[in-house]
């Protein structure tokens, strides 16, 4: 079934009660089902990262509640269980790498969970194979490419066997091939291990890969639908300072010029088919 996340009327203020108080989340209610693949998009300052940090209790609500299955993140006894269930991967992998070899780096998390050495070895092996770094377990992390480092950061989290993986712009620092590698890893974790994926991104092409897209604006959920539906809201998406994936935008503007195209063209192949 997988683990579900739920926010109930979640609001969050930075610097609460101070002069520079700033409301970052405003009454957000959201539910994910287990095994879901969800992308979160929105302009800088829309509340995406603040929302993400609530899912594993890095931030606690100013008002409202966040639940991981039935665990309330604001109950302090729950916090370690919550963090075992929900793993976070951040933007810059260099800040998340701690050890001198790839293998040790992945072992760091499970070691801290107090797991027996044999099982740690197994988990490290498995996690590295999942992200396709099995062949370089003895290498020094700082000599890896950007895409490899980011996959290493993901391996370090999945070795702790979380049910939910929250990723905050995991591909912003890496080249196109590295991006593809990371996306493939996410898809595989979602499809084969039934891990819930919450992917925060500025790339509309990456958001297209998800089953569900949430668009944040001023601390609220503005749109919440399948990517195909969300990106049909061309004018709204642009108003929110976001862009439409190139192919979707082209299909949309050809239609506006009177070209007869069906709804729901999202990739190159389907547009080629329609045009030919």
């Amino acid at each position, binding site marked *: 079934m997988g683990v579900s996340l739920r926010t109930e009327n979640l609001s969050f203020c930075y610097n609460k009660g101070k002069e*520079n108080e700033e409301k970052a989340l405003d009454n957000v209610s959201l539910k994910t089902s287990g095994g879901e693949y969800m992308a979160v998009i*929105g*302009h*800088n*300052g829309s509340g995406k990262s603040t929302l993400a940090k609530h899912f594993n209790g890095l931030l606690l609500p100013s008002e409202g509640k966040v639940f991981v299955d039935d665990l309330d993140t604001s109950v302090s006894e729950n916090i370690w269980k919550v963090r075992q269930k929900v793993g976070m991967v951040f*933007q810059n992998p260099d800040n998340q790498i701690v050890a001198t070899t790839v293998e040790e780096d992945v072992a760091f998390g499970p070691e801290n969970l107090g797991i027996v050495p044999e099982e740690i070895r197994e988990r490290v092996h498995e996690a590295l194979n999942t992200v396709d770094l099995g062949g370089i377990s003895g290498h020094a992390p700082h000599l890896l*490419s*950007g*895409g490899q480092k980011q996959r290493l950061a993901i391996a370090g989290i999945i070795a702790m066997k979380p049910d939910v993986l929250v990723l905050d*712009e995991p591909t*912003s*620092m*890496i*080249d*196109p*091939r*590295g*991006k593809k590698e990371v996306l493939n890893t996410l898809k595989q974790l979602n499809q084969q291990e039934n891990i819930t994926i919450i992917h925060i991104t*500025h790339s*509309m*092409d990456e958001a297209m890969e998800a089953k569900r897209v949430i668009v944040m604006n001023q601390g609220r959920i503005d749109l919440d639908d399948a990517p195909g539906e969300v990106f049909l809201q061309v004018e709204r998406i642009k108003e929110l*300072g*976001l*862009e439409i*994936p*190139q*192919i979707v*935008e*082209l299909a949309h*503007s*050809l239609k506006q*010029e009177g*070209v*007869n*195209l069906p709804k729901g063209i999202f990739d*190159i*192949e389907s*547009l*080629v088919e*329609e*045009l*030919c």
Partner: protein
Amino acid sequence: MLIECKDLTHVYMPGSPMSHKALDEVNLTIDKGEFVGIIGQTGSGKSTLIQHFNGLLLPTSGDVLIQGKSTQGDKKSLKDIREKVGLVFQYPEHQLFEETVAKDVEFGPKNLGLSQEEVGERTRYALEKVGLSYEELKDRSPFELSGGQMRRVAIAGVLAIKPEVLVLDEPTAGLDPRGKQDILDKMLRLHREQGITVILVSHSMDDIAKYSDKIMVMHQGRLKISGDVKEVFARLKDIEELGLNAPKITLLMYRLREKGFDVPYDVFTVEEAKEHLLPHLKKGKLKKSGSDFYV
């Protein structure tokens, strides 16, 4: 010729077991007034290369000339070079350090030994060029600003030196689409209006295709492909082999050509694609090249 690299080789930690050749006999020239995009996989040598352009790194062998002067000359000429070539690093906002926005932007021109008046003028100029209001922000702490604003303040700090060449290493990483476009549009404007030479390092093929005139592709420390945007994206197979790709729109045009349709492939934006496709479109279908019927 503004920038010239001659057999430029750079080895990190030479002679140690960790020795790593990051640049391998790179030869290139960049002329005044060009907008050059540099692409390549992570670790291909892009950042090492651009740090040679203002003498932050010096060649292990070979030479780098800025307007004919080597970066390996005396202190005075290195200082001149650093005034000519402004470098904006990845996440430049991490280098903000002053109490106020104005002080941060002033830091560079002050170090050039300019008069207080000139320093003030340049600070205004630089903030205005990145689209920030001097009056509104001058006394604010840079650390209270949004990520996008901090990035602009950091870029303004380099512009205040009035460099002839602006080198930008992933200037839009982590910014949202509007913030990204806004910064790049401002840089394009500087390039067009003031004739500043811009060198843009980016992983975004969309941005590179949209803004640059020329592209250089780095791979394993070597300059693999170099040419104007059209030429470079014409070599799609080569580019893909190097772990890179072309904008989605360009890939679409390629696919249509493969199917036998007479459309150009050097199309990088939705607007251009629309212009090329519309005249061909009859009843929603494209006209095959060299044939009179519609499929």
